[in-house]
């Protein structure tokens, strides 16, 4: 009986106190709660500290180039829908260079889980601003303050049509664990935004612990409009903002293949003869 422990045994390179340790814990426990083997798991990542996470989880891992984890993950899932596919990015990889793919993946609804570890800074390259940094933040690349307004990836995901959108916080591990498991179980694209402070370059852990709260009681996670309103009203609340059940990309592609097959399975000779 293959072991279902999802710890890879490799010690993370993250700094002590990095928020990403909580995400790693939540991912490992989440995977363990599912009835799947590590062989069926593919974790896809981009570049950055967050994207190191798959290295610490047992399974197949595909580290792509900066910003391209989501389309690569989509390709994996479409090629083999039986695989359990996760994409892990940071806020730079996911919202800056990967922003276009992020938007379209949320709209495409492949059955993958996208975990975005957000520290609002570029840690790997030592502290530049990120698209989720608040406007005016002074960093080594923005000595006079960031020029752009901060972008909220959860709001982006909701407005693009994500069928699961939630936010967790590395400082609230219980909530993060249950949200991660829910994200993994959801049939469709699951977007999990994790506030995960960088202890070395932008340590907002204490501020976040003081300010982050759960979504209000009675939040209806079946109403996208309400979810969007809540995302605007409560930029740093945690919880499940929205979950809905819609056909996934793979479901639709399977339907297309089935109806094509019903019209007659592909025969290359016949197809080519049509050009005669």
């Amino acid at each position: 009986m293959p072991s279902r422990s999802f710890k890879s045994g490799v010690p993370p390179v993250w700094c002590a106190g990095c928020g990403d340790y909580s995400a790693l814990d939540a991912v490992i426990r989440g995977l363990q709660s599912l009835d799947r083997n590590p062989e069926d798991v593919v974790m896809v990542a981009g570049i950055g500290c967050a994207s190191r996470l798959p290295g610490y989880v047992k399974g197949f891992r595909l580290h792509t180039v900066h910003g391209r984890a989501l389309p690569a993950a989509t390709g994996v899932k479409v090629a083999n829908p039986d695989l359990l596919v996760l994409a892990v990015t940071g806020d730079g990889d996911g919202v800056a260079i990967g922003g276009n793919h992020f938007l379209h993946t949320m709209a495409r609804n492949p059955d993958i889980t996208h975990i975005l570890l957000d520290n609002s800074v570029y840690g790997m390259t030592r502290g530049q601003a990120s698209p989720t940094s608040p406007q005016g933040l002074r960093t080594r690349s923005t000595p006079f303050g960031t020029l752009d307004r901060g972008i909220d990836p959860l709001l982006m995901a909701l407005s693009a049509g994500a069928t699961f959108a939630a936010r967790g916080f590395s400082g609230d591990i219980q909530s993060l664990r249950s949200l991660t498991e829910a994200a993994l179980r959801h049939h469709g694209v699951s977007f999990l935004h994790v506030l995960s402070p960088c202890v070395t370059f932008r340590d907002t852990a204490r501020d976040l612990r003081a300010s982050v709260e759960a979504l209000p009681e009675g939040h209806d996670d079946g109403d996208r409009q309400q979810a969007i309103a809540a995302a605007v009203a409560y930029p740093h609340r945690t919880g499940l903002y929205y979950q809905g059940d819609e056909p996934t990309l793979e479901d639709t592609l399977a339907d297309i293949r089935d109806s094509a097959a019903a019209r007659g399975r592909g025969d290359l000779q016949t197809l080519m003869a049509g050009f005669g």
Partner: protein
Amino acid sequence: MPQEGTPRRLDIAIAGQTGDGIVTIGDILAKSLLRRGLEVFTFRFYPTEVRRGAVTYFVSAANGKIPLEADGLDILVCFDQDSLERGLPRLNEGGVVLSDSDRVTMPDGSSLSAVPVPATSIAKEHHRLARNSVLLGALAKILPLDVEAMVPMIEDRFRDDATLADANCAALKEGSARVEGPVVSPLEASQRRDDVLLLSGNEALSLGAIAAGCRFFAGYPITPASEILELLAAELPAFDGSVLQVEDEMAALAAVLGASFAGTKAMTATSGPGFSLMSELLGLSSMAEIPCVVVDCQRGGPSTGVPTRTEQSDLAEAVHGTHGEGPRIVLAPTSVADCFATAVDAFDLAETFQVPVIILSDLYLAHRKESIVMPELSSLAVVDRLLADESDLVEYARYALTEDGVSPAALPGGPGMHPVMGIEHDERGLPDYSPATRRAMMEKRFRKLHALRYERSVEVLREAGEVGLLAWGSTAGAVAAAIDELERRDEKVRSMILRQLHPLPEQPLRMFSEGLRATVIPEVNFTGQLASIVASHLKVPIHSLVKYDGTPFRPGEIVARVEEVAADA
């Protein structure tokens, strides 16, 4: 003067503006000629804008196998005055001008053979857009071609609109009735074959990919590659495959690499601008040893360039385009039939060597149609990547340092879990950039290609001669025609077409340059990219013949240069 036994040819051009429906009747004309048993070749010349600009559709037919390009025209079909002015300079002695006499005035005192048809007035009685069908009917009469046989083709073209279908059929018949024919002596085929197809380069590439086992395609629309996305989107599902139109070319290649990593043969197709965007991910394919096929249908560059004109200017980028150094293979098909074969070869090579394989097509090849014999499918040898066996899976190492450099792969969903990454790694795939590992891995990746013995790496056209002619891609057609003309003039020229552009096939190049006094290298670009690449391999003076006005070579241009070089050499 054509020699005894030389196949007869007929070169027709249909010229007008976009929106005139020239492509519709050009396609029907080409199909009709094909079904008569003739060899057919078509090319469209058109602007970037969807609704404005001059369009010319060239259709050539012959009753035997001949090189495709010709320098002149036998029949010019003009939709407007501008078309006449554009086409006249290319009309052969004794050529025929079929024109819409409502809009075209023949020049005074012209000795041309004119066939005027009041197509605009006739069309008005059926449908104002049916002007093209009127001229098609007239053209069919003068060739002659069976007008009745064209009716089902028109009905199929307008299958979604019965009114338009009827109007066009009526216009077709009236156009035919209004002229006396035939005007040219009929071109008869020596035999009818029922296994011939009329295909564009893009269509052939797409079908070849299906034949090779490609079951995943991701792409982004771009001229002149969009047809590959469109054909596969329509047809691949029936073969159990999936097609995604994604948000940009980076998503396309990333999705392809993801699908390939999961074990599915995957491809994308683009043109210059999209190919540039794929640079980084091509490096990932090399570094992570994930097989993929990338088609670049070259067009005028750089930047947005000239989207609807052909060029062969991405060679340097195909060979080197990515930062750093990694193995890749670059192939360039030379004809529509070759597009099919090259697609199959590309997948086989990608799987065998676990590298990216780039297919360099171009607009001229992508959009032109040629009649080809149905490719033989039963004898196709399709290769799958080397997979790990039981012994490999004990302490599995994805990047095992094997003797030939190719490491057995393990697919997700089965045993052999491993990491894959663009960062330098050890045999197991874990990050490791120590000097020893770095050296070993660089050598391993490049060592893979030492075993490459692609039997179609070159095509030798002629061996004898002291002056050489070396070309690649779609220029091969004009080269073949040029050689024929040179032989008619009793001049021998040693010619070879390079089909594998990277790695360069050194031995064939060495043999080619043995005893040569000089060689001419024609290519459709400005800087002579192939000439630069082969310079150090050909120890003979190279005469780079470049053409960069967006049009393919005419055989005469190549003949002229070869004769100049032969005289001086």
